[in-house]
């Protein structure tokens, strides 16, 4: 190995050139700043989006709701496209582990059932408000069940997973440990829902999907869990109304 400044020979393990003092260590200049900036900007943009959408009357207009969903998807895709190579492998179909798939499909509706009962109780007795169902909000649409599944199940599962377990996870992993990344993505996931009490069920789901993203190095298990959990609420209400 030779010094690129004075061309004198340097020992293979030298950190500096012994003759001119030139550093041989590749400077990791501010490598933490870029991912942290990206995380902060993305977080603030998502917050702004969520606050703005809170003021739009969505339930009366399905086209508007679809437009809002597409805006959300567009915002996330915009951030994903900037560094698309880093996220592409997360969408590769993995070797299916049926034990995991079975567990997700069986346990998430059970968990959703418990959450629904608690949320109903909490809304009725503590807040004093009637909970507007996921399915009944789409009764004005041409195919209510399908539209509800797309809006409640498919969209959030795909794009929230890409946002939290894709973009946030990837950027935070450059700066902090795996455990810290899983915890932070779960906390961000909870904060984005802009409510306090649901910490009891959103945080565990965030932790579980984050763990699965790390263990399996794919988003598909998280997407499946998110989809089955969210869609369960639509199913419960549908069966309650018609059966």
């Amino acid at each position, binding site marked *: 190995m030779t010094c690129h400044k004075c061309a004198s020979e340097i*020992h*293979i393990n030298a*950190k500096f050139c012994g003759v001119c003092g030139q550093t041989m260590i590749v400077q990791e200049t501010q490598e933490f700043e870029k991912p942290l900036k990206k995380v902060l900007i993305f977080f603030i943009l998502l917050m702004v989006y969520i606050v703005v959408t809170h*003021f739009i009357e969505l339930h009366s207009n399905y086209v508007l709701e679809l437009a809002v969903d597409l805006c959300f998807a567009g915002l996330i895709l915009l951030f994903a496209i900037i560094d698309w190579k880093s996220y592409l492998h997360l969408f590769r179909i993995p070797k299916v582990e049926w034990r995991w798939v079975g567990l997700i499909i069986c346990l998430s509706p059970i968990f959703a059932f418990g959450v629904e009962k608690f949320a109903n109780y909490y809304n009725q007795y503590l807040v004093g408000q009637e909970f507007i169902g996921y399915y009944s909000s789409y009764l004005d649409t041409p195919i209510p069940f399908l539209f509800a599944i797309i809006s409640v199940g498919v969209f959030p599962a795909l794009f929230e997973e890409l946002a939290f377990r894709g973009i946030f996870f990837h950027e935070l992993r450059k700066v902090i440990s795996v455990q*810290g990344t899983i915890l932070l993505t779960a906390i961000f996931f909870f904060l984005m829902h*802009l409510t306090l009490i649901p910490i009891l069920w959103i945080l565990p789901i965030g932790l579980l999907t984050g763990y699965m993203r790390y263990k399996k190095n794919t988003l598909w298990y998280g997407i499946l869990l998110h989809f089955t959990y969210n869609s369960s609420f639509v199913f419960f209400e549908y069966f309650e109304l018609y059966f």
Partner: protein
Amino acid sequence: MSTNLEEIRMMERDVMRREIKIEDPSTCFYCNSKGLTPENKFCPNCRFPQGGTELEMKNFYIGTAKKKFMIRDSMKKVNRAKYILFALAGLNFLVSLYYLFYTFENAVLAFGIQLFVALVYLGLGLWCIKKPLLGIIVGLSFYLFIIALMAVIDPMTIIQGILWKVLIVMAFIYGIQSVKEAEKMEAELEKLKVANDFTKLQISAEVEEEMVPTPDAEKLEDQEIVEQKEEPKQNENE
């Protein structure tokens, strides 16, 4: 800042008074790395000017000591972010007390939520002592979350106290940057302290050179491999 300057000046005077005598030129005076050659003006491990003048050596000491002061400065910014979290906890606790003593509709719920927020800030402040980076990131995101939540309830709250909000967010951001800078500088200083044995490594490099196979040796090895592969076939034929 003035105390820092005074401390730096005192440290400089202290270093200048000291005498640096190099007894073994092949061993670095600063990091004790072995195997330094007469051509080495600088130590290849820590950049200490072993072959330089005494003034250069003293300047090296001053430079590394200044890095320690910079780490201390960064930690001050981290502590500022931590104190903000404690202050926010205190403020929220006071507001929760206000809800407790003044009766209005849903006062108990408001008290509970405010107390929960205060406890979260307190927890984050305490977490900052052990894990400053995680604590400040979560603290900042939780603060932004509260601003967003209040904005949903009443949009005018975004403008209220905007200067304070910006200052707090900036303090958190500087805190995050400072944690990483301090971590990086500490790691650099730690790396410089670890001694290296260049004589030992030079020998191993020579051994590696000896181990590089010559073309003839490669041919011989290939022949041997071919023979080994052919042997079982012969046995099969038999």
